[in-house]
């Protein structure tokens, strides 16, 4: 199941719970996008509340006429968790918190799975942190990650910290995957200790949760993703290889490459030294993701850190993929590469063209760059080793492209 399918599935679970239907009955909704399903869920939630809003208001009013202990008893014995969750949306905050204080954790947990946190944000924020943590622990124990994911954005830092202390790391990753609002995710991670973060990274490998972990890395700020990447780089090869395996198997290099760019040099170097990313099919997938997607800028700083053979393979893959790209895209990639300083890498690109027999696509690529980029590249080309320049010049002449590469031809001839 892809990332989007998993998120759609989580939304269908929420809609099923709202409507009192097993999610299987609503399986056809999984074809819709998660963002669209969220809109549908909110519309359906509003409709459910609206249809009995007058009665909910009267019940809320009547609840103020009775002692809190009696109201809490009636809530549990007569109304049950579902209706209490609906009525909570119209209760005054202080009254709701006082009632919750007299309810057992098990009942509050059942109620929490039915609650619309948007309507009860002040109540969630106002409840004692230890009570929230107790409910969170039971929810996590029941595997109610979807329900938990809805609450986090409404919890106080203190409640989050106490909840983090009682929820295991695999559950944290599963919750993060369905957590609503990326700001909440950033806040939770900010409140986790380095040891908890390391535990979550290990859990990703031990519990096969790298898809969840990579999704998380793609949703937090670049700075935080880099910090998490550095922590991962401190783990043993088995952990990092788990990440590589998932990125490769689920085609998630677009999530991993930006993280490597945000990592500190030592972490990036450790990542580049991993045997598992030197595999030809892995390098091919990385290059395709970078060149065809949005991660080209993220790949370039990684290349010089790879072993020589892997570097040559990267460049030959780049040349092979670039051969099929539109001219505008090629020019964009080349301009970015020049901006990032490709001087040191250019001999390897030329070397890869020779070693892999890719002179034709390499020279066609140069032709496509146009006069402006030719002028910017000329000084770099002039600095190439004499043997490489001569070989490139000979091939350009043989292919009849010397006239099309303008000043580059002159730089190769010097």
């Amino acid at each position, binding site marked *: 199941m892809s990332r989007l399918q998993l998120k759609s599935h989580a939304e269908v679970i929420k809609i099923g719970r709202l409507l009192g239907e097993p999610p299987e009955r609503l399986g056809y909704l999984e074809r*819709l996008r998660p963002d669209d399903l969220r809109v549908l869920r909110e519309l359906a939630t509003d409709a459910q509340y609206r249809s*009995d809003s007058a009665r909910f208001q009267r*019940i809320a009013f009547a609840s103020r*006429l*009775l002692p809190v202990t*009696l109201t809490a008893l009636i809530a549990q*014995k*007569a*109304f049950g968790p579902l209706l209490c969750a609906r009525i909570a949306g119209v209760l005054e905050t202080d009254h709701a918190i006082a009632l919750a204080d007299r309810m057992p954790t098990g009942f509050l947990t059942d109620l929490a799975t039915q609650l619309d946190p948007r309507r009860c944000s002040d109540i969630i924020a106002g409840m004692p942190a230890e009570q929230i943590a107790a409910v969170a622990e039971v929810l996590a124990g029941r595997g109610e990650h979807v329900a938990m994911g809805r609450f986090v954005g409404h919890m106080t830092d203190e409640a989050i910290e106490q909840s983090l202390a009682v929820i295991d790391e695999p559950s944290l990753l599963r919750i993060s995957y369905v957590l609503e609002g990326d700001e909440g995710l950033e806040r939770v991670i900010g409140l986790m200790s380095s040891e908890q973060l390391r535990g979550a990274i290990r859990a990703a490998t031990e519990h096969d949760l790298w898809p969840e972990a990579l999704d998380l890395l793609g949703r937090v700020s670049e700075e935080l993703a880099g910090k998490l990447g550095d922590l991962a780089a401190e783990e043993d090869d088995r952990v990092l290889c788990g990440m590589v395996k998932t990125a490769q198997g689920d085609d998630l290099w677009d999530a991993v490459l930006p993280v490597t760019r945000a990592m500190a040099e030592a972490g990036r170097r450790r990542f580049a030294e991993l045997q598992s990313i030197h595999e030809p099919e892995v390098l091919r997938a990385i290059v395709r993701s970078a060149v065809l997607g949005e991660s080209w800028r993220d790949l370039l700083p990684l290349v010089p850190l790879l072993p020589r053979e892997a570097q040559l393979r990267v460049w030959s893959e780049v040349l092979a993929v670039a051969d099929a790209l539109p001219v505008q895209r090629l020019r964009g990639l080349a301009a970015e590469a020049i901006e990032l300083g490709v001087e040191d890498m250019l001999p390897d690109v030329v070397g890869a063209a020779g070693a892999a027999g890719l002179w034709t696509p390499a020279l066609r690529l140069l032709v496509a760059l146009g006069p402006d980029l030719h002028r910017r590249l000329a000084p770099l080309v002039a600095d190439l080793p004499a043997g490489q320049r001569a070989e490139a010049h000979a091939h350009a002449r043989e292919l009849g492209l010397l006239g099309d590469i303008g000043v580059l031809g002159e730089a190769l001839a010097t």
Partner: protein
Amino acid sequence: MNESIRSTLREELGAAPPFFLDDLDDAELADLARALSEARSRQADALEQAIAKSMWFLPWGLRGAVRKVLLG
């Protein structure tokens, strides 16, 4: 989406059906409308039963007043 289903969904959602529902076929949309309707009915029935049951927990003297507030 045929007009009959569009109208039913508008009634159940209390708003115009969002455009992305056009990706579902009419049978699926009809099932969605039915699920929405059944959920509302179940909620209304559960409320009535809960209100009736709540009277059992009230002192005699309060039942009339609370019932009046609850039922309007």
